[in-house]
């Protein structure tokens, strides 16, 4: 690990002042950052420890939603009574990721900002436009089993690796962000960035900004689930995952909020799927149409070609289960 200067913040303003230095990074749980610092993928000159600035509360909002502090651990969130009762898709998504040891440290804000697990990104001997702009993308012609099939660019085909954010996207949660100049709120669905020509940019956070909390809307009716397809049954990243909230009214679909993990540089949300599904009677043909729409621009890169049919089948399985249609 490269030498760095360690500073502990005692409040949000103090954290901002300490981080106003060249190559400073905030550290919360550290499970991703320290891993990358050991690999010298991340080489901050200063670490600003924000573990003592508060922001750990999980509390109801005035409108009946739920505000989750940026430093609430994944364990605290997944085991919280209101999350388990009203937002099971979120509890399920968190529990499907990592291990108990990691979830005990990992925080809400850090989890949203975690970096890709692309093998080229995490190996400093390999080219990677995300880590070293202009060096090329090793994955496009290389080992790409974990990689994206939607929203890729000629610069980067990495995936966003997390599970929690996929559920937050389906729930249409909001990210609350603070900086010296004020506060702003960004929907989770707009928080992460596609790689485009700026693959080094994972999300919309600007220098000096910090996530303070994530806000869930009031609970909605319907069946929630998180289905994760992976190489082994525990402690593996998603090949394809789907967070879903599906409500039936009689024989018709009344709500279908879906988000997809493991397929793109962002938790993937396609509003057109809801528009297609809602108001329709569920059957296999309808699910096929939804999969056609989701995957119309999908592109495989050899090793990850299998993700296209896998995403189709997983969508079928999720919609069948949620609507009670026999597969």
């Amino acid at each position, binding site marked *: *690990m490269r*030498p*760095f*200067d*360690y500073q502990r913040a005692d409040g949000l303003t103090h954290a901002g002042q300490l981080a106003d230095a060249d190559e400073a990074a905030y*550290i919360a749980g*550290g*499970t991703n950052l*320290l*891993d990358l610092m*050991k690999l010298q993928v991340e080489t901050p000159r200063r*670490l600003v*420890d924000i*573990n003592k600035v508060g922001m750990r509360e999980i509390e109801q909002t005035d409108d009946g939603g739920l505000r989750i502090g940026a430093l609430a651990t994944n*364990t605290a969130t*997944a*085991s919280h009574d209101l999350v*388990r*009762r009203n937002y*099971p898709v979120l*509890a*399920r998504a968190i*529990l*499907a990721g*990592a*291990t*108990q*040891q*990691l979830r*005990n*440290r990992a925080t809400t804000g850090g989890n949203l900002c975690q970096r890709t697990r692309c093998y080229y990104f995490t190996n400093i001997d390999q080219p990677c436009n995300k880590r070293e702009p202009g060096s090329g993308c090793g994955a496009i012609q290389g080992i790409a089993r974990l990689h994206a099939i939607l929203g890729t660019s000629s610069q980067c085909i990495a995936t966003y690796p997390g599970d929690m954010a996929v559920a937050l996207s389906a729930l249409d949660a909001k990210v609350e962000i603070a900086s010296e100049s004020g506060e702003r709120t960004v929907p989770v669905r707009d928080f992460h960035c596609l790689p485009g020509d700026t693959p080094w940019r994972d999300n919309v956070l600007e220098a000096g900004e910090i996530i303070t909390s994530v806000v869930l809307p009031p609970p909605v009716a319907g069946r929630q689930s998180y289905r994760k397809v992976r190489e082994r*049954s*525990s*402690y593996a990243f998603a090949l394809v995952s789907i967070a879903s909230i599906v409500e039936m009214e009689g024989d018709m679909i009344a709500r279908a909020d879906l988000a997809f993990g493991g397929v793109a540089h962002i938790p993937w949300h396609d509003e057109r799927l809801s528009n297609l599904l809602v108001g329709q009677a569920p059957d296999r043909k309808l699910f096929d149409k939804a999969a056609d729409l989701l995957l119309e621009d999908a592109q495989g890169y050899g090793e990850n070609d299998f993700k296209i049919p896998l995403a189709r089948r997983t969508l079928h399985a999720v919609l069948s289960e949620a609507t009670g249609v026999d597969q």
Partner: protein
Amino acid sequence: MTETITVNETEYPIPADPRVSLLDFLRQHVGLTGTKKGCDHGQCGACTVLVNGMRINSCLSLAVMHGGDSVTTIEGLGNPENPSALQKAFVEHDGYQCGYCTPGQVCSATAMLQEIDNGWPSDASESLEGEVELTADEIRERMSGNLCRCGAYPNIVAAIRDAAKEDAA
């Protein structure tokens, strides 16, 4: 004011170099080598210790971030003369071969039984809100952060089930 970390009820000063991981602090500064370094990247779980009662990977945490915290290592759970119920069960069931992952397995399982008492669900739990039944599937899921390259998993699961039963009795 010098900040300290409490390890197994004894206080130790925090190292000057902020790069020292909690794991290296325990092994090289405190001299407690029961906690093991496997992958040093949070994948194998050999370095698992309890911090304020919660299990974490000590390799993925900096010692300097733990001022005021209370750390329990395998040495703090028991000793050959007076082993904990889990330590005894691991011996009785041969829950290891080479033994390298064992301190992490035992620390992890110690916290896991507490998590189940707390009613926290896992990915293997049928219901998010019901009582957790300690099935083999539950144990395997909850212990997936601890690898055993000798493959002693069946005996590790048996040891944990046994210790949990004793706990409940």
